[in-house]
Protein backbone atom coordinates (compact mmCIF):
# COMPACT_ATOMS: atom_id res chain seq x y z
CA UNK A 1 0.00 0.00 0.00
CA UNK A 2 1.05 3.59 -0.38
CA UNK A 3 0.01 7.01 0.81
CA UNK A 4 -0.88 9.59 -1.79
CA UNK A 5 -2.17 13.11 -1.54
CA UNK A 6 -5.83 13.77 -2.22
CA UNK A 7 -5.25 15.80 -5.36
CA UNK A 8 -3.58 12.82 -7.05
CA UNK A 9 -6.52 10.45 -6.58
CA UNK A 10 -7.94 8.75 -9.64
CA UNK A 11 -11.09 6.71 -10.18
CA UNK A 12 -10.42 3.01 -9.80
CA UNK A 13 -7.88 3.34 -6.99
CA UNK A 14 -8.71 1.07 -4.07
CA UNK A 15 -8.58 2.19 -0.44
CA UNK A 16 -5.98 0.29 1.57
CA UNK A 17 -7.09 1.76 4.89
CA UNK A 18 -10.59 2.95 5.88
CA UNK A 19 -11.34 6.63 5.48
CA UNK A 20 -12.30 8.12 8.83
CA UNK A 21 -13.94 11.28 9.97
CA UNK A 22 -12.93 11.40 13.61
CA UNK A 23 -13.63 7.81 14.65
CA UNK A 24 -16.50 7.26 12.24
CA UNK A 25 -15.76 5.16 9.15
CA UNK A 26 -16.87 6.96 6.00
CA UNK A 27 -15.49 4.50 3.47
CA UNK A 28 -14.29 1.01 4.28
CA UNK A 29 -11.01 -0.46 3.11
CA UNK A 30 -11.22 -2.25 -0.20
CA UNK A 31 -13.60 0.37 -1.64
CA UNK A 32 -12.86 1.31 -5.24
CA UNK A 33 -12.99 5.10 -5.53
CA UNK A 34 -15.37 6.78 -7.97
CA UNK A 35 -15.24 10.39 -9.21
CA UNK A 36 -18.11 11.24 -6.85
CA UNK A 37 -16.29 9.88 -3.84
CA UNK A 38 -13.10 11.63 -4.83
CA UNK A 39 -14.80 15.02 -4.92
CA UNK A 40 -16.38 14.31 -1.50
CA UNK A 41 -12.98 13.40 -0.11
CA UNK A 42 -11.58 16.63 -1.52
CA UNK A 43 -14.21 18.54 0.45
CA UNK A 44 -13.11 16.91 3.67
CA UNK A 45 -10.10 18.18 5.52
CA UNK A 46 -7.96 15.10 4.66
CA UNK A 47 -4.61 15.68 2.93
CA UNK A 48 -3.85 12.11 1.90
CA UNK A 49 -5.24 8.57 1.82
CA UNK A 50 -3.75 5.09 1.69
CA UNK A 51 -4.39 3.13 -1.49
CA UNK A 52 -3.56 -0.38 -2.57
CA UNK A 53 -0.66 -1.17 -4.76
CA UNK A 54 3.05 -0.63 -4.65
CA UNK A 55 4.32 2.82 -5.46
CA UNK A 56 5.78 3.12 -8.88
CA UNK A 57 9.45 3.00 -8.20
CA UNK A 58 11.65 5.51 -9.97
CA UNK A 59 14.33 2.97 -10.88
CA UNK A 60 14.36 -0.74 -11.77
CA UNK A 61 14.90 -3.28 -9.00
CA UNK A 62 18.40 -4.32 -10.15
CA UNK A 63 19.50 -0.70 -10.02
CA UNK A 64 18.00 -0.23 -6.58
CA UNK A 65 19.83 -3.28 -5.22
CA UNK A 66 23.09 -2.22 -6.84
CA UNK A 67 22.78 1.15 -5.12
CA UNK A 68 22.12 -0.64 -1.85
CA UNK A 69 25.39 -2.55 -2.25
CA UNK A 70 27.22 0.67 -2.97
CA UNK A 71 25.81 2.35 0.13
CA UNK A 72 26.95 -0.44 2.39
CA UNK A 73 30.40 -0.91 0.90
CA UNK A 74 32.29 0.55 3.85
CA UNK A 75 30.72 -1.64 6.50
CA UNK A 76 31.02 -5.08 4.92
CA UNK A 77 33.15 -6.39 7.76
CA UNK A 78 30.64 -5.67 10.50
CA UNK A 79 28.10 -8.37 11.28
CA UNK A 80 25.46 -6.08 12.80
CA UNK A 81 25.60 -3.82 9.74
CA UNK A 82 25.30 -6.79 7.40
CA UNK A 83 22.29 -7.97 9.37
CA UNK A 84 20.77 -4.54 8.86
CA UNK A 85 21.56 -4.68 5.15
CA UNK A 86 19.71 -7.96 4.83
CA UNK A 87 16.57 -6.45 6.35
CA UNK A 88 16.79 -3.39 4.09
CA UNK A 89 17.27 -5.62 1.05
CA UNK A 90 14.12 -7.56 1.90
CA UNK A 91 12.27 -4.28 2.42
CA UNK A 92 13.34 -3.01 -1.00
CA UNK A 93 12.37 -6.25 -2.68
CA UNK A 94 8.99 -5.88 -1.00
CA UNK A 95 8.52 -2.50 -2.65
CA UNK A 96 8.81 -4.15 -6.03
CA UNK A 97 6.23 -6.72 -5.09
CA UNK A 98 8.85 -9.30 -4.12
Amino acid at each position, binding site marked *: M*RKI*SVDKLEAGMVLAKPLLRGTMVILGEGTALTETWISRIEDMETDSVFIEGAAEQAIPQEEALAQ*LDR*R*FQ*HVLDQPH*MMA*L*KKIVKEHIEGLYGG
Partner: protein
Amino acid sequence: MADNLELQRMRAKVEAINALPTVPSNLRKISVMLEKPRLTMDEIARFVANDPALTTKVLRMVNSAAYGFPGRISSVSHAIMLLGLNVIRGLLIGISVFDLMQKNMAGLWEHSCACAVAARCIAQQKKMKEPEEVSICGLLHDIGKAIVMLQFPSEYEQALREAKEKDISLFEAEKKYLAATHADVGLWLAQKWRFPANLVEAIGYHHRPQLATQAPLETAIVHISDSFVRAKGVGFAGDPFVSTIHPATWQMLQLSDDEIRDILTQIDESTSAAGEET
Protein backbone atom coordinates in the same frame (compact mmCIF):
# COMPACT_ATOMS: atom_id res chain seq x y z
CA MET B 1 45.19 20.23 12.96
CA ALA B 2 43.39 23.55 13.21
CA ASP B 3 44.88 26.12 15.50
CA ASN B 4 42.88 27.99 18.07
CA LEU B 5 42.67 31.24 16.14
CA GLU B 6 41.33 29.51 13.07
CA LEU B 7 38.76 27.75 15.20
CA GLN B 8 37.69 31.00 16.83
CA ARG B 9 37.36 32.73 13.49
CA MET B 10 35.28 29.90 12.16
CA ARG B 11 33.08 29.93 15.22
CA ALA B 12 32.50 33.67 14.94
CA LYS B 13 31.43 33.32 11.34
CA VAL B 14 29.12 30.44 12.21
CA GLU B 15 27.48 32.37 15.04
CA ALA B 16 26.85 35.32 12.74
CA ILE B 17 24.24 33.39 10.85
CA ASN B 18 20.73 34.77 10.86
CA ALA B 19 18.34 32.36 9.23
CA LEU B 20 18.28 28.96 7.58
CA PRO B 21 16.63 28.68 4.16
CA THR B 22 13.25 27.04 3.75
CA VAL B 23 11.93 24.74 1.04
CA PRO B 24 10.42 26.67 -1.90
CA SER B 25 7.10 24.85 -1.75
CA ASN B 26 6.74 25.95 1.86
CA LEU B 27 6.74 29.58 0.86
CA ARG B 28 3.53 29.03 -1.06
CA LYS B 29 2.02 27.06 1.80
CA ILE B 30 2.90 29.84 4.21
CA SER B 31 0.84 32.40 2.30
CA VAL B 32 -2.06 29.97 2.18
CA MET B 33 -1.82 29.46 5.94
CA LEU B 34 -1.63 33.16 6.68
CA GLU B 35 -4.84 33.78 4.77
CA LYS B 36 -6.86 31.38 6.90
CA PRO B 37 -9.10 33.26 9.33
CA ARG B 38 -8.68 30.76 12.13
CA LEU B 39 -5.42 28.92 12.33
CA THR B 40 -5.18 26.20 14.96
CA MET B 41 -2.07 25.51 16.98
CA ASP B 42 -2.10 21.91 15.73
CA GLU B 43 -2.07 22.91 12.07
CA ILE B 44 0.82 25.26 12.62
CA ALA B 45 2.77 22.77 14.70
CA ARG B 46 2.45 20.11 12.03
CA PHE B 47 3.51 22.52 9.32
CA VAL B 48 6.51 23.85 11.22
CA ALA B 49 7.70 20.44 12.38
CA ASN B 50 8.17 19.37 8.77
CA ASP B 51 10.64 22.09 7.94
CA PRO B 52 14.04 22.23 9.63
CA ALA B 53 14.36 25.95 8.88
CA LEU B 54 11.06 26.87 10.49
CA THR B 55 11.65 24.51 13.38
CA THR B 56 15.02 26.10 14.06
CA LYS B 57 13.46 29.57 13.98
CA VAL B 58 10.70 28.65 16.37
CA LEU B 59 12.95 26.86 18.84
CA ARG B 60 15.48 29.63 18.73
CA MET B 61 12.78 32.16 19.51
CA VAL B 62 11.16 30.32 22.35
CA ASN B 63 14.52 29.58 23.98
CA SER B 64 15.77 33.16 23.61
CA ALA B 65 16.45 35.51 26.49
CA ALA B 66 13.40 37.53 25.48
CA TYR B 67 11.02 34.87 26.75
CA GLY B 68 12.99 34.09 29.84
CA PHE B 69 13.13 30.30 29.97
CA PRO B 70 16.14 29.33 27.89
CA GLY B 71 17.16 25.72 27.45
CA ARG B 72 13.70 24.37 28.26
CA ILE B 73 11.82 23.74 25.03
CA SER B 74 12.63 21.26 22.30
CA SER B 75 9.14 20.39 21.19
CA VAL B 76 7.49 22.30 18.36
CA SER B 77 3.99 21.98 19.77
CA HIS B 78 5.13 23.33 23.15
CA ALA B 79 6.97 26.15 21.42
CA ILE B 80 3.87 27.13 19.48
CA MET B 81 1.74 27.09 22.65
CA LEU B 82 4.20 29.40 24.33
CA LEU B 83 4.88 31.76 21.47
CA GLY B 84 1.23 32.22 20.56
CA LEU B 85 -0.51 32.66 17.23
CA ASN B 86 0.38 36.32 16.78
CA VAL B 87 4.06 35.69 17.15
CA ILE B 88 3.92 32.75 14.76
CA ARG B 89 2.12 34.87 12.22
CA GLY B 90 4.86 37.43 12.54
CA LEU B 91 7.49 34.77 12.01
CA LEU B 92 5.78 33.41 8.91
CA ILE B 93 5.29 36.87 7.50
CA GLY B 94 8.96 37.54 7.98
CA ILE B 95 10.06 34.72 5.70
CA SER B 96 10.93 36.04 2.29
CA VAL B 97 12.01 34.79 -1.10
CA PHE B 98 15.60 35.37 -0.10
CA ASP B 99 15.28 32.67 2.48
CA LEU B 100 14.94 29.94 -0.12
CA MET B 101 17.50 27.24 -0.42
CA GLN B 102 19.66 26.08 -3.27
CA LYS B 103 19.38 22.63 -4.77
CA ASN B 104 21.99 20.80 -2.76
CA MET B 105 20.25 21.73 0.43
CA ALA B 106 17.04 20.10 -0.71
CA GLY B 107 18.72 16.70 -0.47
CA LEU B 108 19.84 17.49 3.05
CA TRP B 109 16.36 18.57 4.09
CA GLU B 110 14.89 15.37 2.69
CA HIS B 111 17.42 13.35 4.66
CA SER B 112 16.63 15.36 7.80
CA CYS B 113 12.86 14.94 7.51
CA ALA B 114 13.26 11.20 7.05
CA CYS B 115 15.47 11.12 10.15
CA ALA B 116 12.75 12.86 12.10
CA VAL B 117 10.30 10.15 11.12
CA ALA B 118 12.71 7.34 12.03
CA ALA B 119 13.60 8.96 15.35
CA ARG B 120 9.97 9.41 16.32
CA CYS B 121 9.26 5.81 15.37
CA ILE B 122 12.06 4.47 17.56
CA ALA B 123 11.06 6.74 20.45
CA GLN B 124 7.53 5.37 20.27
CA GLN B 125 8.79 1.79 20.10
CA LYS B 126 10.87 2.42 23.23
CA LYS B 127 7.82 3.95 24.90
CA MET B 128 9.58 7.23 25.56
CA LYS B 129 7.53 10.01 27.10
CA GLU B 130 8.20 12.67 24.48
CA PRO B 131 8.58 11.15 21.01
CA GLU B 132 8.00 14.57 19.49
CA GLU B 133 11.14 15.94 21.09
CA VAL B 134 13.18 13.01 19.83
CA SER B 135 11.71 13.57 16.37
CA ILE B 136 12.97 17.15 16.45
CA CYS B 137 16.43 15.91 17.41
CA GLY B 138 16.33 13.82 14.24
CA LEU B 139 15.06 16.74 12.20
CA LEU B 140 17.83 19.09 13.25
CA HIS B 141 20.83 16.79 13.67
CA ASP B 142 22.53 17.99 10.47
CA ILE B 143 21.85 21.73 10.65
CA GLY B 144 25.60 22.13 11.01
CA LYS B 145 25.90 21.06 7.38
CA ALA B 146 23.41 23.68 6.25
CA ILE B 147 25.36 26.33 8.13
CA VAL B 148 28.63 25.24 6.57
CA MET B 149 26.99 25.27 3.13
CA LEU B 150 25.86 28.84 3.70
CA GLN B 151 28.88 30.33 5.41
CA PHE B 152 31.72 28.35 3.85
CA PRO B 153 30.44 27.40 0.40
CA SER B 154 33.78 26.91 -1.34
CA GLU B 155 35.22 24.74 1.43
CA TYR B 156 32.02 22.74 1.43
CA GLU B 157 32.21 22.29 -2.34
CA GLN B 158 35.74 21.02 -2.04
CA ALA B 159 34.83 18.61 0.73
CA LEU B 160 31.91 17.30 -1.32
CA ARG B 161 34.12 16.76 -4.33
CA GLU B 162 36.75 14.98 -2.28
CA ALA B 163 34.11 12.73 -0.72
CA LYS B 164 32.79 11.85 -4.16
CA GLU B 165 36.17 11.25 -5.74
CA LYS B 166 37.61 9.22 -2.90
CA ASP B 167 34.41 7.39 -2.03
CA ILE B 168 34.61 8.50 1.57
CA SER B 169 32.09 10.09 3.91
CA LEU B 170 31.60 13.84 4.09
CA PHE B 171 32.38 13.70 7.79
CA GLU B 172 35.87 12.45 6.86
CA ALA B 173 36.39 14.82 3.94
CA GLU B 174 35.38 17.98 5.75
CA LYS B 175 38.17 17.59 8.30
CA LYS B 176 40.60 18.39 5.52
CA TYR B 177 39.03 21.71 4.57
CA LEU B 178 37.44 23.01 7.74
CA ALA B 179 38.73 23.70 11.21
CA ALA B 180 35.69 21.99 12.74
CA THR B 181 33.18 19.35 11.65
CA HIS B 182 29.54 19.97 10.87
CA ALA B 183 28.68 18.32 14.17
CA ASP B 184 30.80 20.88 16.04
CA VAL B 185 29.23 23.70 14.06
CA GLY B 186 25.75 22.49 14.88
CA LEU B 187 26.73 22.15 18.53
CA TRP B 188 27.98 25.76 18.68
CA LEU B 189 24.74 27.10 17.30
CA ALA B 190 22.53 24.89 19.42
CA GLN B 191 24.37 26.18 22.47
CA LYS B 192 24.22 29.77 21.28
CA TRP B 193 20.51 29.48 20.67
CA ARG B 194 20.04 27.92 24.11
CA PHE B 195 18.45 24.76 22.86
CA PRO B 196 17.78 22.19 25.58
CA ALA B 197 20.52 19.68 26.40
CA ASN B 198 18.92 16.77 24.56
CA LEU B 199 18.87 18.71 21.31
CA VAL B 200 22.37 20.08 21.79
CA GLU B 201 23.83 16.62 22.32
CA ALA B 202 21.90 14.97 19.47
CA ILE B 203 23.21 17.63 17.11
CA GLY B 204 26.75 17.61 18.45
CA TYR B 205 27.32 13.91 19.04
CA HIS B 206 25.24 12.07 16.47
CA HIS B 207 28.45 10.71 14.91
CA ARG B 208 30.00 9.83 18.25
CA PRO B 209 27.08 8.94 20.49
CA GLN B 210 29.28 7.57 23.22
CA LEU B 211 30.19 11.17 24.09
CA ALA B 212 26.67 12.11 25.11
CA THR B 213 26.30 12.50 28.87
CA GLN B 214 22.94 14.17 29.42
CA ALA B 215 20.88 12.60 26.67
CA PRO B 216 22.55 9.35 25.67
CA LEU B 217 19.30 7.70 24.61
CA GLU B 218 18.13 10.53 22.33
CA THR B 219 21.60 10.80 20.81
CA ALA B 220 21.71 7.06 20.25
CA ILE B 221 18.36 7.17 18.52
CA VAL B 222 19.47 9.96 16.19
CA HIS B 223 22.73 8.14 15.46
CA ILE B 224 20.83 5.04 14.43
CA SER B 225 18.12 6.96 12.56
CA ASP B 226 20.83 8.62 10.49
CA SER B 227 22.16 5.19 9.48
CA PHE B 228 18.72 3.84 8.69
CA VAL B 229 17.85 6.77 6.46
CA ARG B 230 21.17 6.38 4.65
CA ALA B 231 20.53 2.65 4.33
CA LYS B 232 17.26 3.45 2.61
CA GLY B 233 18.99 5.99 0.40
CA VAL B 234 16.58 8.82 1.18
CA GLY B 235 17.76 12.34 0.41
CA PHE B 236 21.43 13.28 0.24
CA ALA B 237 23.53 14.28 3.22
CA GLY B 238 26.82 14.84 1.37
CA ASP B 239 27.69 11.25 0.67
CA PRO B 240 25.66 8.11 0.01
CA PHE B 241 27.35 5.80 2.48
CA VAL B 242 25.93 4.01 5.46
CA SER B 243 28.12 4.71 8.44
CA THR B 244 28.88 2.15 11.09
CA ILE B 245 26.41 2.09 13.91
CA HIS B 246 28.42 2.23 17.11
CA PRO B 247 28.19 -1.28 18.62
CA ALA B 248 27.40 -0.02 22.12
CA THR B 249 24.58 2.08 20.69
CA TRP B 250 23.20 -0.85 18.75
CA GLN B 251 23.26 -2.83 22.00
CA MET B 252 21.58 -0.02 23.94
CA LEU B 253 18.55 0.12 21.71
CA GLN B 254 18.11 -3.59 21.02
CA LEU B 255 15.82 -3.10 18.04
CA SER B 256 14.17 -6.26 16.80
CA ASP B 257 13.99 -7.14 13.11
CA ASP B 258 10.28 -6.34 13.08
CA GLU B 259 10.88 -2.98 14.69
CA ILE B 260 13.47 -2.20 12.04
CA ARG B 261 11.08 -3.23 9.27
CA ASP B 262 8.45 -0.97 10.78
CA ILE B 263 10.84 1.96 10.81
CA LEU B 264 11.75 1.42 7.16
CA THR B 265 8.08 1.31 6.20
CA GLN B 266 7.36 4.53 8.07
CA ILE B 267 10.23 6.28 6.32
CA ASP B 268 8.82 5.04 3.05
CA GLU B 269 5.30 6.28 3.70
CA SER B 270 6.44 9.71 4.78
CA THR B 271 8.71 10.21 1.78
CA SER B 272 6.18 8.99 -0.78
CA ALA B 273 3.60 11.41 0.61
CA ALA B 274 6.14 14.21 0.64
CA GLY B 275 7.17 13.43 -2.91
CA GLU B 276 3.61 13.88 -4.11
CA GLU B 277 3.40 17.39 -2.77
CA THR B 278 5.79 19.23 -5.09
